[in-house]
């Protein structure tokens, strides 16, 4: 139980503190850089709000590859969607997680049946493992991957796996598993601001900025 | 030549109590000192916690009273937050408190107090037939055959003959002060065992509403026992919660059984036993000052007119005049530490109201192991609470006197019947045995109310009102940044109140002034004794200082609950003073 207390207490608290501070540090560190804009005349018909629209179109459009790329991007896209949606379901639609968020923020919403979430968790874990295998076997990904990529993968998979073990009581006593699960989340939170997981926030800007730029030119987003 | 008699541990009580008494050459007690010897610091532990959790901690002040501190705690928080709890919750709480009264008093009488009056060894020589006759003469209790008493006698006999006396070992059996005939002893012994069986059933009321006993669950804002609305509840389906039609019927049955035992066994036994000890109606009076906070509200604690037990103070035995009481008035209720193992920054002679209370450990007693306390210094972990500077007795006697004084009909009637049956005047109540008798009377008075509460609850449910908890103020963000409240109740042992100060959603200060602190507290700055001490100083002569049965009787008549009585508070959050052990 002491491990669980450590996990629920100091570990999670310091992780949250690091997470919040780190995320803000990184986001503000980026957003406070000068905004370099080239004030060219927009393509005719693209109103000022068109660029804003482009921003959102960019965010939305890149959820799925363009037709020309589907064949090459199929695995990455489907697998990516599987674990992203899986993570979303597991993180945000599992009752204990909602309770955690409610405790932290006061916000709550309906949950999914635990059994369903568990099943999604298994699929998510499998999908993440597939992603790793792909990363290791695909020459391109292997070449461009760094510690950041592998470690981010690890800290993402770890809470899923430990969470699955915890709910199914496999391997150790529940409180130990829960503690390990919480510690793995703490690790995730600590790593989050410093690794590539920040794309969870930054995609809004990167997709949006390109969307706006392309919209401005009347080009394909 | 004065001789110090030390009784430690006082057994058959809750907690750790030590009595030291100075006796003269005739064995008469000249002065007595009551010392609580255990402290846990629960109020320190409560500081900085969620006030909604407080009941759980406070409740563990005592496992015998088990729910009273939980009740006082949730009421204190509700008072601070301006709660008005749903009527059903009030009724369920009443039922639980009522069950606690009946359970606690009966157990006290048979398991904690009876062996002061009942000689187990004498019971072995009783005639079962005569015992049966005795039983049949005092009530219509079913278990009254000679065969039944013969069985009990055999059981105890074999037990004794087997050579291991267990809880009866070293008893003062045969002491001159045991005056019951063998048959009465045997009857009481049989009831000792019956009461054990019976009480298991009574506590099931707590189990149904609170999930378990000891330490049933409570909740700020009502009770945590939603009333099942699922039709499958009656078949025990998985959707059933504990409070359903089947279990409410069981509550009804339990009330019936418990009242029957009180009527057929407890009340007749008390009167029968008391009739052999009438000299104990003349000693052990003590202070003559009595105090009640009041309880059993029908709609929250707001309207005193609706409390079944009134609040007030009786001074110098004058039950014709009941003084009004305001427990929030700093002039009225104060705690003193002159003879306690605490320090006070305003000087050890200053008394403080619980809201302003300030206490730090300051043990100046002898280093253990020791034989005797130094009663000129501190000698107890209890403090000495006073009402307008006067020591007070609280408990069943105070309540019965208050009800009697206010002309509460069932009380006047029942008390009249008992006094007449015993052929003693009303003043006989101011005594050791009077205290015990008052407890019996009160058990019946409260037990008789319970059917009515259940009826109302069932009527509410039938009318579609099933709410038992108000969660409108559950979220701490709805609370004011600072809130103060007091929650009080009449615990079986007497007036109990918890004070709470909530700051930014957390407990800033928590205080409990409990019945046994009033009764068992040490002397104050004016050297005025507490209720135990005063009672022991009233006409007690020890026949055998090594067998201080007389002390046991009077102390037990108060039904001590020492774990409750000892608490420590430190509202300023100061470092605890390092204690120097001599």
């Amino acid at each position: 139980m002491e491990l669980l207390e450590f996990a629920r207490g100091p570990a999670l608290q310091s992780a949250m503190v690091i997470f919040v501070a780190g995320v803000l540090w990184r986001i503000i560190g980026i957003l406070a850089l000068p905004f370099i804009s080239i004030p060219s005349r927009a393509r005719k018909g693209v109103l000022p709000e068109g660029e804003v629209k482009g921003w959102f179109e960019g965010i939305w459009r890149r959820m799925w590859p363009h037709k020309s790329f589907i064949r090459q991007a199929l695995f990455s896209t489907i697998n990516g969607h599987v674990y992203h949606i899986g993570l979303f379901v597991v993180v945000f639609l599992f009752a204990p997680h909602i309770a955690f968020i409610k405790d932290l923020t006061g916000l709550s919403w309906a949950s999914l049946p635990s059994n369903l979430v568990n099943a999604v968790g298994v699929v998510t874990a499998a999908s993440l493992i597939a992603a790793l295998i792909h990363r290791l076997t695909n020459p391109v990904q292997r070449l461009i991957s760094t510690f950041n990529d592998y470690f981010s993968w690890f800290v993402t998979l770890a809470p899923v796996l430990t969470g699955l073990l915890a709910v199914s009581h496999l391997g150790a006593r529940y409180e130990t598993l829960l503690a390990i699960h919480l510690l793995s989340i703490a690790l995730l939170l600590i790593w989050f601001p410093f690794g590539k997981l920040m794309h969870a926030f930054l995609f809004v800007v990167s997709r949006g900025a390109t969307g706006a730029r392309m919209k401005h030119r009347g080009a394909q987003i | 030549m004065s001789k110090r008699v030390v009784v430690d541990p006082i057994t058959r009580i809750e907690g750790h109590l030590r009595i030291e008494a100075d006796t003269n050459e005739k064995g008469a007690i000249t002065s007595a000192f009551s010392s609580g010897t255990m402290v846990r610091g629960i109020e320190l532990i409560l500081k900085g916690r969620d006030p909604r959790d407080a009941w759980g901690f406070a409740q563990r002040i005592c496992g015998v009273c088990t729910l009273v501190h939980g009740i006082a705690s949730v009421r204190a928080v509700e008072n601070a937050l301006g709660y008005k709890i749903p009527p059903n919750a009030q009724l369920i709480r009443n039922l639980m408190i009522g069950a606690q009264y009946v359970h606690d008093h009966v157990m006290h009488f048979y398991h904690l107090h009876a062996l002061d009056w009942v000689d187990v060894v004498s019971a072995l020589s009783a005639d079962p037939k005569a015992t049966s006759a005795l039983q049949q003469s005092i009530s219509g209790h079913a278990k009254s055959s000679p065969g039944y008493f013969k069985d009990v006698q055999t059981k105890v006999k074999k037990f004794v003959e087997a050579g291991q006396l267990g809880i009866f070992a070293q008893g003062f059996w045969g002491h001159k002060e045991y005056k019951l005939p063998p048959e009465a002893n045997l009857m009481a012994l049989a009831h000792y065992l019956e009461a054990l069986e019976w009480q298991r059933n009574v506590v099931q009321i707590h189990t149904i509403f609170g999930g378990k006993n000891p330490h049933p669950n409570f909740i700020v804002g009502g009770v945590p026992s939603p009333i099942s609305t699922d039709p499958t509840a009656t078949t025990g389906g998985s959707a059933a919660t504990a409070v359903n039609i089947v279990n409410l019927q069981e509550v009804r049955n339990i009330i019936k059984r418990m009242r029957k035992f009180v009527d057929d066994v407890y009340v007749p036994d008390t009167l029968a036993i008391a009739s052999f000890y009438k000299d104990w109606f003349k000693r052990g009076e003590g202070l003559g000052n009595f105090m009640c906070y009041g309880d059993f509200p029908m709609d929250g604690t707001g309207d005193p007119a609706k409390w079944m037990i009134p609040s007030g103070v009786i001074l110098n035995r004058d039950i014709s005049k009941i003084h009004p009481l305001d427990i929030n008035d700093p002039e009225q209720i104060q705690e003193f530490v002159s003879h306690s193992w605490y320090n006070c920054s305003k000087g050890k002679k200053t008394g403080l109201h619980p809201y302003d209370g300030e206490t730090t450990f300051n043990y100046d007693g002898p280093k253990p192991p020791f034989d005797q306390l130094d009663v000129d210094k501190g000698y107890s972990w209890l403090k000495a609470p006073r009402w307008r500077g006067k020591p007070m007795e609280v408990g069943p006697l105070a309540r019965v006197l208050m009800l009697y004084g206010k002309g509460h009909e069932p009380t006047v009637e029942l008390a009249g019947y008992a006094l007449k049956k015993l052929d003693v005047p009303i003043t006989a109540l101011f005594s050791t045995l009077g205290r015990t008798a008052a407890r019996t009377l009160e058990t019946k008075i409260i037990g008789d109310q319970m059917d009515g509460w259940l009826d109302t609850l069932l009527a509410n449910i039938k009318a579609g009102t099933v709410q038992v908890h108000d969660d409108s103020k559950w979220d701490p963000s709805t609370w004011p940044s600072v809130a103060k409240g007091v929650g009080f109740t009449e615990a079986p042992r007497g007036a109990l109140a918890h004070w709470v100060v909530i700051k930014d959603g957390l407990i800033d200060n928590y205080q409990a002034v409990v019945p046994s602190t009033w009764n068992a507290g040490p002397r104050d700055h004016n050297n005025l004794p507490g209720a135990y001490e005063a009672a022991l100083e009233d006409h007690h002569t020890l026949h055998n200082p090594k067998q201080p049965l007389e002390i046991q009787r009077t102390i037990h008549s108060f039904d001590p609950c020492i774990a409750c009585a000892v608490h420590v508070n430190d509202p300023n959050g100061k470092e605890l003073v390092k204690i120097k052990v001599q």
Partner: protein
Amino acid sequence: MNCTKEFTHNAPFVHVLMHEITVLLGDLALNGKEGAIDLRGLPLLDQDKKQLEDLLGRGEVSAIVNIMGETQIWETAYSGVWWLRHKDTGDKVISDQVAVTIIPEILKTHKSDVKSSLERLRTVFKTEEKREDGNSHDHEQLR
């Protein structure tokens, strides 16, 4: 018995239990080895238990033992398979067992009990002889 049809609707747990009982009964038939299943230790719902009880049915023998509350014993429709239901003094079921045996242990009279009842019988016999008024509730003592 046409249990097979019912099995298809039953909770898998009951099915497993029936299989277990079959194995135990086989052991008893072949090796004379006794066995028992404590149903309390299994996560059975009340319905499951009822279902098992119905499936096993009632046989020719049943008995009630009155000690520390009632104990109901019956042989199921399958000889050698007994159901033991212990209740406490409050008439609550506190244990359900399926015993696979020739005769449940609790029904047998123990030698030492025979001895002591013999002694008591002799005492009573003597008491009867001694008794003068013939008006007594001494039979109570014999409980």
